[in-house]
């Protein structure tokens, strides 16, 4: 099974590498968000006389942009997984999935390879966002100020949060890809999920200005869980604003991911089993 999975993962990566337009397009989103949206929507300016007054609204982050950049890393990771399920549908339409399903390759290998290869883009883009956000500060723009000392454990937690978040959404979108036949249906369903999930997360909103009911919803949102880990590890003052340690949020995120992997595996098995 390992050999099958690696061979199919290689296929996915070769295809990704041969599609530079998709890579360039995926880079545009985070760059535009950081250079335009993040620079323009700088809530911290409202408190320009005493920026420290704004810190409680952004749960201990030094600036709104810093808070926003961590959220943006999570948001970008999620959006980069959107197309992963669409590829299943295109592979089905072009007959490639039929060929693969006719071989002894297991459904777990077929699902697992797409998941593995599908992590490259979201994880890469999330770290690109963090790196770019840090680099903007010295250029005289709003930038990400890391106020905590990020050691090996914190760096590992950040990596895990982004990987698990990507796994979770990649699994969800793969589950949808294995379940629907037409690309139009896929994108309709994905959009119906993606936007509400983003808008009910604390990726972009300052936590302190959220209504209480929305804080409740947002606190269970997987994007919130992931970006909370990032904020706890990047900002020294953040721990005072969150009830749990990063490990607990990672566990919550892991629960989400496990549920989605289970769902996607079941749907992949059903889709690849001999048709009824």
């Amino acid at each position, binding site marked *: 099974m390992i*050999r*099958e999975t*690696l*061979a*199919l993962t*290689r*296929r996915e990566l*070769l*295809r990704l590498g*041969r*599609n530079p337009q998709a890579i360039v397009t995926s880079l545009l989103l985070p760059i535009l968000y950081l250079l335009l949206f993040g620079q323009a929507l700088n809530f911290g300016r409202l408190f320009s006389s005493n920026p420290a007054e704004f810190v409680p609204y952004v749960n201990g982050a030094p600036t709104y942009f810093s808070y926003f950049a961590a959220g943006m890393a999570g948001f970008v990771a999620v959006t980069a997984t959107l197309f992963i399920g669409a590829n299943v549908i295109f592979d089905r339409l*072009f*007959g*490639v999935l*039929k*060929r*693969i*399903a*006719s*071989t*002894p*390759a297991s459904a777990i290998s077929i699902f697992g390879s797409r998941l593995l290869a599908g992590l490259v883009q979201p994880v890469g883009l999330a770290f690109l966002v963090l790196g770019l956000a840090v680099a903007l500060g010295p250029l005289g723009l709003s930038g990400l100020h890391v106020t905590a000392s990020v050691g090996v454990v914190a760096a590992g937690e950040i990596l895990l949060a982004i990987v698990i978040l990507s796994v979770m959404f990649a699994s969800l979108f793969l589950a949808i890809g294995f379940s629907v036949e037409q690309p139009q249906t896929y994108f309709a369903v994905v959009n119906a999920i993606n936007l509400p999930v983003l808008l009910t997360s604390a990726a972009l909103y300052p936590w302190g200005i959220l209504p209480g009911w929305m804080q409740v919803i947002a606190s269970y949102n997987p994007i919130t869980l992931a970006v909370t880990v990032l904020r706890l590890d990047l900002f020294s003052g953040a721990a005072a604003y969150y009830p749990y340690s990063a490990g607990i949020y990672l566990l919550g995120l892991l629960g989400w991911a496990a549920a989605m992997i289970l769902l996607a595996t079941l749907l992949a098995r059903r889709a690849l089993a*001999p*048709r*009824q």
Partner: protein
Amino acid sequence: MGAKDPAGSIVAGELTKTYNGTVRAVRGVSFAVRPGEVYGFLGPNGAGKTTTVSMLSAGLRPTSGRATVDGVDVGAEPDTVKRRIGVVFQESTADGDLTGRENLELAAALYSVPRNEVRSRVDGLLERMQIGDAADRLAKTYSGGMRRRLELAAGIVHSPRVLFLDEPTLGLDPQGRAGFWKYVLELRQEHQMTVFVTTHYLEEADGMCERVAIIDHGTIVAAGTPGELKDRLGGDIVTVRPSVPNPSLAELLAQVPGVVAAVAQDGSCRLKCTNGEALVPEIVAACVRAGVGLQGVSLKRPSLDEVFLEFTGREFREDEGLSATDRAVMVGRVRQQLGGRR
């Protein structure tokens, strides 16, 4: 049917497939393909050929009936069957964004070809299929014939015991078809593979298959060697053209042993006989003995067109409308759309 079925064989018992509970694509077909045989499933579009291949290759569950392939029960052990067979589908299934070589390497890995053999097998197949020069080009740049050959290579990279070819030469010109079959027959000879092919090209079934089953509306209407099927029509047609019209010629030649029927037609005499080639000298001798001068004698073997006509009562036409699968999908979609109103 079961464990006793020999390696390399394909045995189907009352295989039936009904889509959506109403569209009966395959209606209880039974047949046995011998190891190493090239067996053809001949029929028009929508006859149930692809559905049968899908059931035999573990891609589709039959509604009822059983099948074994290479001695393995398809329903009970679909994964084992998949390991032992190769499938070439009628549509292109190669990954256009991979090179020809990468497509074959992927197939080799999925079929667990020993790692140390992958390179030599892939190189060998690329050369053999005459796509060696294009091996490192993306498959989407290949011509139709090259893609078909790549599909064939991907289907046999693991040296399967049984090879299923579902309308493998669809869309190829006669030269491309001949080339494709040359490779299939060579490979079959070398690897003693059993080949099960569906086709709606009569001449393909006639020329390439050792035995043929004619399927129509999901039912096998006739089966046997192409020669046997034609013989069932009464054999060959010998047309005798006398130098001068002779009304009693048909009566005379009907007496020749081996002539099944003799009919006067447009000044000639049309004879049906079991073995025309052997009978022509005797027919000529009978004419000479009776003092009938001859302008010419011609021999025609009946084609599978006539066989199809004989057993189905219809002309064999390529355009028979939607296939059973297409019909099922269409019926499903129409039902879906009507769902809210019914």
